[in-house]
């Protein structure tokens, strides 16, 4: 970063912040300044709320923001997936209209991809959109939608052509959630949390200009969203430290974060809460038990090795070395760690594993771990799908023969309606 540009950018950012940063502004107003100035998303194109800087120079700007304690644009939850997708595939008008309010935090978004009948097989979805004059009429059901209940827009993937192969008949829309044809219902999980929604669309309407990309080109658009989602998931582990500053901006930011993070609050339990294992074993008095210790060791060791593997991948990237297989294993490793952690927790508490709630071990956290861990090998791509991906993309093993990709979707075997749930 010792290119001359770095110094110049640093100084410009510093000067701009010195002039404009004000922790007593309303959050949205401050962010409008960021959006209009381009300092909020410095790596975005100058034409679209950015400054066209490289990633490296973007880091320089970030550092200045941190130094000044200045709050950035809204970037949590699904909104950055929407922003990235629109930036790459949206029309001029869509970008102009939708991006600013994403960045200010005024609009919340959700993702309407998965369906009861198509989980692992996302491209097999059957929500249909049909063009009626200037309006797309949408019918179908989506599921595993985080935050749909307070979202203004949904990124909707729907089938618009049934006579072409499955990946080619999908289109990508921006659906307004608050309309009569859209019903959002919370989906309660076995751990008691309801962090997802089901979304039912009955003759829901999407204006023609809210199609993103081309009709039939939705899969390509969705791939952008999914790529950013993977990145987001990798980043989630270090997420969610509340900002501590004083002033109106900070206050409103904390409220925003609390609202956005609410659905994710059981994610640490889903990942196994390895950090709690030793305290829990000490509290139960079972730490000296040699059999319990073996289980604890397995969990702690796998966790450590998984952390080191992630760090190894980052280090190789930072040094510009060719990416090794270690970078593709995070999700499967997390699943293995979580299962080992659940076993260790159970062993560490003994019969108290029967209990839940406040009087249970670690104020009920162990129970929550036990009830949440089974989700980690499913959510965001099952372990089976992960293993397929690793085997094919990393190890180069051949794909399974498939007969659902080259024929008109109409002719592909699908779920009978009673198994779509």
């Amino acid at each position, binding site marked *: 970063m010792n290119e001359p540009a770095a110094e110049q950018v640093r100084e410009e950012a510093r000067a701009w912040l010195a002039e404009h940063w004000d922790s007593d502004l309303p959050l949205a107003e401050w962010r409008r300044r960021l959006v209009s100035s381009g300092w909020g998303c410095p790596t975005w194109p100058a034409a679209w709320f950015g400054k066209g800087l490289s990633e490296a120079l973007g880091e320089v700007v970030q550092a200045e923001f941190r130094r000044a304690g200045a709050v950035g644009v809204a970037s949590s939850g699904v909104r950055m997936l929407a922003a990235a997708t629109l930036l790459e595939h949206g029309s001029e008008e869509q970008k102009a209209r939708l991006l600013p309010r994403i960045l200010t935090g005024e609009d919340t978004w959700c993702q309407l991809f*998965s369906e*009861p*009948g*198509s*989980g*692992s*097989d996302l491209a*097999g979805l059957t929500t249909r959109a049909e063009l009626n004059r200037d309006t797309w009429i949408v019918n179908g059901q989506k*599921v*595993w939608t985080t935050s749909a209940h307070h979202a203004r827009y949904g990124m909707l993937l729907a089938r618009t052509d049934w006579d072409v192969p499955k990946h080619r008949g999908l289109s990508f829309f921006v659906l307004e959630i608050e309309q009569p044809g859209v019903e959002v219902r919370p*989906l*309660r*999980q*076995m751990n*008691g949390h309801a962090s997802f929604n089901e979304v039912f669309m009955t003759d829901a309407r999407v204006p023609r200009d809210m199609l993103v990309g081309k009709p039939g080109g939705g899969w390509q658009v969705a791939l952008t969203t999914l790529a950013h989602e993977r990145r987001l998931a990798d980043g989630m582990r270090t997420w969610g430290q509340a900002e501590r500053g004083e002033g109106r901006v900070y206050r409103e930011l904390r409220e925003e974060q609390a609202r956005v993070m609410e659905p994710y609050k059981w994610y640490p339990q889903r990942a196994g809460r390895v950090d709690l294992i030793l305290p829990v074993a000490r509290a*139960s*008095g079972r730490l000296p038990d040699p*059999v*319990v210790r073996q289980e604890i060791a397995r969990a702690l060791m796998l966790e450590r090795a998984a952390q080191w593997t992630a760090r190894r991948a980052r280090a190789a990237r930072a040094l510009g070395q060719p990416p090794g297989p270690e970078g593709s294993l995070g999700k499967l490793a997390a699943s293995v760690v979580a299962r080992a952690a659940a076993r260790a927790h*159970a*062993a560490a508490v*003994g*019969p*108290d*594993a*029967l*209990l*839940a*709630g*406040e*009087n*249970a071990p670690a104020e*009920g956290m162990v*129970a929550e771990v*036990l*009830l949440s861990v*089974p*989700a980690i*090998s*499913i*959510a965001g791509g*099952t*372990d*089976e799908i992960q*293993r397929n991906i690793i085997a094919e993309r990393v190890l180069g093993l051949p794909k399974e023969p*498939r*007969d*659902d990709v080259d024929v008109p979707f109409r002719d*592909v*075997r*699908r*779920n*009978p309606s*009673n*198994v779509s*749930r």
Partner: protein
Amino acid sequence: MSQLSFSDEQRQFRDFVARFFREQSPVARARELMLSEAGYDPELWRRLGGELGLTGVHVPEAYGGQGFGAVELGIVLEEMGRVAYCGPYFGSAVLATYALLEGATAAQQERWLPELAAGGVIGSLAVAETGGGWEAETVRASARQSAGRWRLEGTKSYVLDGRIADFFIVAARESGSTGAEGLSLFVVQAGAAGLEVEPLQTIDATRRLSRLRLSGVDAELLGEPGAAAPALRRVLDRAAVALASEMVGGAQALLDSAVSYAKLRVQFGRLIGSFQAIKHRCADMLLAVELAKSAAYGAAEVAAREASADELGEAAALAKALAAEAFLQAAVDTIQIHGGIGFTWENDTHLYFKRARGSEFLLGTPAEFRDRFVEYVSAREAAHE
């Protein structure tokens, strides 16, 4: 040597019991009851006792039972496990009833068993204390005699059906005694002065647990004072065998559900059951369930024929450990095969998953039962040398 077979009568009995629970108490019912205040269906309970005689299936006819044995009891529990039956059967008809059968005097049996066998009262057994342990050595609750009455002090945990039980059979020891010595069983009436019943929040809402606090509670001694350890061991081993049957029933229900979903669900243009990952998982589930079933059936036969305490203990350890493992694994696998939907509240899998978690450590952990199994086998081999 176990026969590992069922007679035609036993098979008919199973068909009858299975149909009854499928029709009268399907898993949807457990879902309602687990959220209800009482936590069970008193009307169904009366039918189990009166019309069907199931609450006394293994109680001698002399005490108003059906006079059958551990095999028939295992059949009842397996079919209950299959529908995740929600009620005090395991606590009252198994634990409390066995405690009276093994630990009470004939006079006490005559007094208590008929009503218990008929389901007219609900009993519960309180052995383990906070932190667990169902072995005699871990009992700390104490009993002292004063003015001809016994008084109990201490705390009991993981007590089944504490809110609805009419009486508790409590393990306590003479102050100063340790190990298997000085241990007795006592009957404590629900509502007795000094008895506090504190409901515990549990993972498995279909099996209610409570903590008892005993502060100088008035109690009636069962059997001879200080001699209850061997009886308690038999009670818990018999109960472990029965619990294994229940778990095996649950595991079978999970397997059935996973397999039928795999035959209906389509992804990538194929039934998911045609993918090797699903197929092999189901095959492994079947193997684990069938091995556990054999262990539970074999152990029930051992329990049915008044085997030695060691033989019973060995069979109980085998059955409990394998059934617990198979049940939990089947639950995890069934969730995985269902994908996201398997993790939702509205899908039934979680009831069984929670039951599996809630049964795994009840009466002792699988690791404890494994350790004990090695002890039994090793001692037996050494004796034969």
